[in-house]
């Protein structure tokens, strides 16, 4: 039977798996495949697995729970091995690499930060700070909106200003939080967000990070929303830390 693989960890991880459920519609038990001083956490791979909310939550819950009790190397959602023997073979093949990754990720967590402008506030701010744009807006309004090409031309200039503001504000958020992180990495762009970035934070720096994030959130209130997720398993850094060998 195919094995769904959640994460790799040290064989010494307590691996309290009994209280956890795996992916799939049926309640699937988790088990550990131990080899070479490492352990892989797996379950039977359900037929026809798709990224349903239930499955994403199961995957995330397993990783977060185990990550809170020790260091884990999270695997990408949906990783399926032919069987447990193939998982053990991979632990043998990559033993040095995975042990090294676990060492590098030890006592670190990931925080993800997303920022989204409140559009009206952003536009009002842009117009207030740019007399030319504001005058153009007033002129179009006085003309009953203007022609479509006039509106498009104006909108394009606004769009350019918005894009510049997105870049500026993203840099602002990253610069404020970066000093508390070991690493940072842009996450995939998400609709509506001017910044989506993950930070690898030493466990001991979480409070400082959160305090500054809270300051940022307060400071941007009414202008942009900042959402912080974590502590997460170090999804975004399984490659980045290796690049630094």
């Amino acid at each position, binding site marked *: 039977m195919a094995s769904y693989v959640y994460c790799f960890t040290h064989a010494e991880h307590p691996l309290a798996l009994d209280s956890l459920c795996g992916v799939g*519609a*049926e*309640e699937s038990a988790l088990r550990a495949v131990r080899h070479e001083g490492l352990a892989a956490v797996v379950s039977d791979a359900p037929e026809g697995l*798709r*990224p*349903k*909310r239930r499955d*994403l*939550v199961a995957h995330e*819950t397993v990783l*977060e*729970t185990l990550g*809170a009790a020790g260091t884990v190397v999270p695997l*990408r*959602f949906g*990783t*399926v*091995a032919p069987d447990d023997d193939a998982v053990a073979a991979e632990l043998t093949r990559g033993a040095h690499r995975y042990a090294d990754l676990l060492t590098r990720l030890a006592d670190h*967590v990931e925080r993800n930060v*997303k920022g989204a402008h409140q559009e009206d506030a952003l*536009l*009002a*701010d842009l*117009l207030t700070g740019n007399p030319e744009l*504001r005058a153009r807006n007033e002129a179009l309004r006085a003309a009953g909106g203007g022609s479509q090409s006039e*509106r*498009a031309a104006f*909108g394009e200039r*606004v*769009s350019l200003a*918005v894009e510049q503001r*997105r870049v500026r504000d993203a840099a*602002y958020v990253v*610069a*404020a939080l*970066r000093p*508390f*992180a*070991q*690493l940072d*990495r842009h*996450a*995939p*762009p998400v609709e509506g967000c*001017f910044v*989506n970035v*993950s930070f690898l934070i030493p466990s*001991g720096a979480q409070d*400082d990070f959160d305090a500054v994030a809270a*300051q940022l959130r307060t400071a*941007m209130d009414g*202008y942009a929303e900042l*959402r912080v*997720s*974590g*502590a*997460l398993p170090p*999804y*975004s850094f399984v*490659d980045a830390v290796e690049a630094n060998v």
Partner: protein
Amino acid sequence: MTIMSQPPAAAGGGGGSAAGALYDVIELILDRGLVIDVFVRVSIVGIELLTIDARVVVASIDTYLRFAEACGRLDLTGGRQPVGLPAIVGQITENSAERRVRGALTGAGRAIADTIQDIVTPDGRD
């Protein structure tokens, strides 16, 4: 079918965001994490596009018209205070410099965001 009840995350570990904040980490679950070349990944074809290239959205005629319309609706006459970014930036930067915790790994992770491929089922019901 049976709906699984998820156990609470381990106490004191800083976890517990799994179900409530799933939406905010979906793209990480689907597009980050270790990939093992010799293992397969389940297909994520045919489900709703979640993440997008923000630049595409900004640079389109529809967006231009929408911005123009939104600007036309704004009331800027009320003596509204510009919001913008706050004055605490200097303060934060100073604090940050003092409490710097970056170590030897600093600077390695400046990877550019990958091309957008993430797709996800928005609804968990079968």
